[in-house]
């Protein structure tokens, strides 16, 4: 039975979709579930899977065509099967009424109509690959199309094998365990050579909470777009940069007082308030000037100390995370930084950041204080050397040097640094210097 391939309706209010690219050629054998073509709606670009296994035939739309949803765009035939007359596309009024179905009871699909002479081998080869012979220039006697001509055309038309299927590398043991436990190998990052999935990887994945509910209802979200970028960058960072993490406790009394004064002034003059983030960015930028190793990058066995101090500020989004940059933060005023951060955050949430807004960062600050987090460890944003994780500021009992306990506003911040570049002592000096600035904001004037 021929199976029709339709332009699927993907969204509630969708009427059409645009064909971007066929991933399979006419005449090619496809397997059910294999990506067949790429289409684009007003919101997304998505791969359409083959609804059945067989041979792709009767493709009637091409790249750029805008096709109404639910319309038949191709067929999948079984070997030897013809395009049935009743399924012959009605959407082509120009088609003359065919007298009878073409009688070619062969197991291989019938060769496409030939407008040029071609050798039998070339015809068979072209048919097997769904190649239109009329598009090929023959180099044989009298312009006859030869096998070599078809092979040449195929080499040009076919995407590289790698792009067609991404085979998961996995050991036999990993495959067996995945089979036994119902784990999808393609979702597992392999720890072996060339990313090969090994038994331990599958066992770890199977032991995770995700696997326990695997039998129940699972919401599957493809790892793509921003999610995929984050996944890849964080994995790369964590695997290549040996992280050292250091935490300090900061008395934020003076900091809060200074901010209160600044904001009182802002209110009095009708200017926007100064955010905690802006002050942090300023303090970090200024401290980095004295600690160039934390503002560096490792490139080809060389450590590059960077002349500019560009601070990334991590911004949480509904579906991810983005880190826009305050360029030249050490040379900007707190008010300037505050306004710039506000603008960047707003545009990030609206999806209007430009490439310049997110590139060139040299150090990252991630503040999860607003989420009530006391302390956490962040993964370095490559190719930077370090990242600062800032927790919530809240009252805590603190003992002073004489042992007297008072309640002070306390914040914990954790520095993660790339140990290939920065040793513990260097990181410690930076962190304690930063604490000094935060505890004595007057030093920002230094």
């Amino acid at each position: 039975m021929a199976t029709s391939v339709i332009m699927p309706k993907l969204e509630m209010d969708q009427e059409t979709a645009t064909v971007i690219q066929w991933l399979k050629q006419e005449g090619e054998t496809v397997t059910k579930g294999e990506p067949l073509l790429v289409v684009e709606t007003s919101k997304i670009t998505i791969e359409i899977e083959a609804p059945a296994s067989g041979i792709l035939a009767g493709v009637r739309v091409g790249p750029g065509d805008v096709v109404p949803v639910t319309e038949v765009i191709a067929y999948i035939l079984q070997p030897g099967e013809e395009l049935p007359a009743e399924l012959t596309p009605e959407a082509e009024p120009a088609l003359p009424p065919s007298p009878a179905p073409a009688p070619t009871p062969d197991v291989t699909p019938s060769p496409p109509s030939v407008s040029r002479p071609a050798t039998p081998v070339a015809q068979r080869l072209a048919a097997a690959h769904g190649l239109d012979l009329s598009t090929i220039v023959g180099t044989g006697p009298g312009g006859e199309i030869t096998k070599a001509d078809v092979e040449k055309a195929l080499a040009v038309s076919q995407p590289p094998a790698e792009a067609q299927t991404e085979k998961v590398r996995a050991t036999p043991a990993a495959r067996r365990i995945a089979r036994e436990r119902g784990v999808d190998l393609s979702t597992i990052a392999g720890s072996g050579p060339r990313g090969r999935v090994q038994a331990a990887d599958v066992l770890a994945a199977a032991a995770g909470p995700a696997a326990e509910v695997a039998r129940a209802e699972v919401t599957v979200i493809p790892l793509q777009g921003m999610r995929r970028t984050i996944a890849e960058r964080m994995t790369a960072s964590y695997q290549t940069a040996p992280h050292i993490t250091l935490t300090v406790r900061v008395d934020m009394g003076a900091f809060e007082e200074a901010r209160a004064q600044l904001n009182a002034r802002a209110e009095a003059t009708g200017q926007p308030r100064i955010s905690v983030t802006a002050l942090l960015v300023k303090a970090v930028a200024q401290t980095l000037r004295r600690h160039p190793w934390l503002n560096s990058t490792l490139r080809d066995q060389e450590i590059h100390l960077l002349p500019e101090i560009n601070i990334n500020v991590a911004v949480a989004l509904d579906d991810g995370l983005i880190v826009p940059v305050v360029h030249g933060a050490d040379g900007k005023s707190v008010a300037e930084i505050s306004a710039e951060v506000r603008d960047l955050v707003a545009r990030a949430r609206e999806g209007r950041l430009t490439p310049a807004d997110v590139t060139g960062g040299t150090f990252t600050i991630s503040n999860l204080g607003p989420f009530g987090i006391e302390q956490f460890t962040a993964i370095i944003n490559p190719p930077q050397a370090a990242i600062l994780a800032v927790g919530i500021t809240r009252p805590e009992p603190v003992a002073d040097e004489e042992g007297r306990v008072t309640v002070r506003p306390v914040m914990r911040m954790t520095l993660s640094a790339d140990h290939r570049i920065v040793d513990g002592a260097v990181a410690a000096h930076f962190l304690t210097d930063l604490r000094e600035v935060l505890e004595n904001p007057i030093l920002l004037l230094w």
Partner: protein
Amino acid sequence: MRELSYAEAIREALRQEMQRDERVFIIGEDVGVYGGAFGVTLGLVEEFGEERVIDTPISELGIAGAITGAALTGMRPVGEIMFMDFTTLAMEQLVNQAAKIRFMFGGKAKVPFVLRTPAGSGTGAAAQHSQSLENWFVHVPGLKVVMPSTPYDAKGLLIASIRDDNPVIFIEHKLLYKVKGPVPEEPYTIPLGTAEVKREGRDLTIIATSIMVQRSLEAAQQLAEEGIEVEVIDPRTLKPLDKEPLIRSVMKTGRVLIVHEACKTGGYGGELAAVIAESEAFDYLDAPIIRLAGRDMPISYNRTLEYHTVPQVENIVQAARDLARGRM
């Protein structure tokens, strides 16, 4: 238990079998008063006389033919070829005659001989006295191939080989002759076709033959200090091969390193790898099957080059570690 060297264990097996069965005799070059090139048969001519410890001219093909003919007609000869390299001179009789007679004659004859021969490098004897040609014989149906790695195994396997009704190629290793180990005084047999787990472990299986068993055990000891538990298995007889213990071990560990001294290409490791890949252990493999073997080249005279031509303990440690840690 009393300790004997590998050479002494072999000599004791010969002596006990000659005492037990007068059909058993020794024949080879310089096996008499000289005691064999490596002294294995020292003293036997004094005990059993020149009629049962027969020196021959330098005639390897003649020796092979003599043991074939004698075995065919009721004797149980133990031939010796001074170096395994020289078995090449005896190939016709071994491969075309001894191995095939029983089959060709419809099972109505048998050729119960043992051909002892020392293999292996490490003595500075260069390219024509250092080869490990066991796989030449493994490929010939009708022959059994035995390769002991310890004094205990050498005695038990040699007695079993002498009592076996088939032509057995018994491959000794020159560097093992002086290695000592516990050996019971009374005669005993180790059935041909029984592998032995020489050390238990859960992380990795090493299948090794002959001297590589000793080197693998040494490597396993070192790796244990790193927390890697290696299982070492010695097939002991290459043919017939006792497959089950190998398969069971690989199903347990999921990783297998095969170590032998003979050149890698066409070596026995290829056979072992195929046996595992074809078995139910396939689905338990968590890494490629890795072979560590001699380079595909002759043995050099120069000591350093000779050393680096065949696997050494440090090579085994390295390969086993990489394999166990999922880096291969």
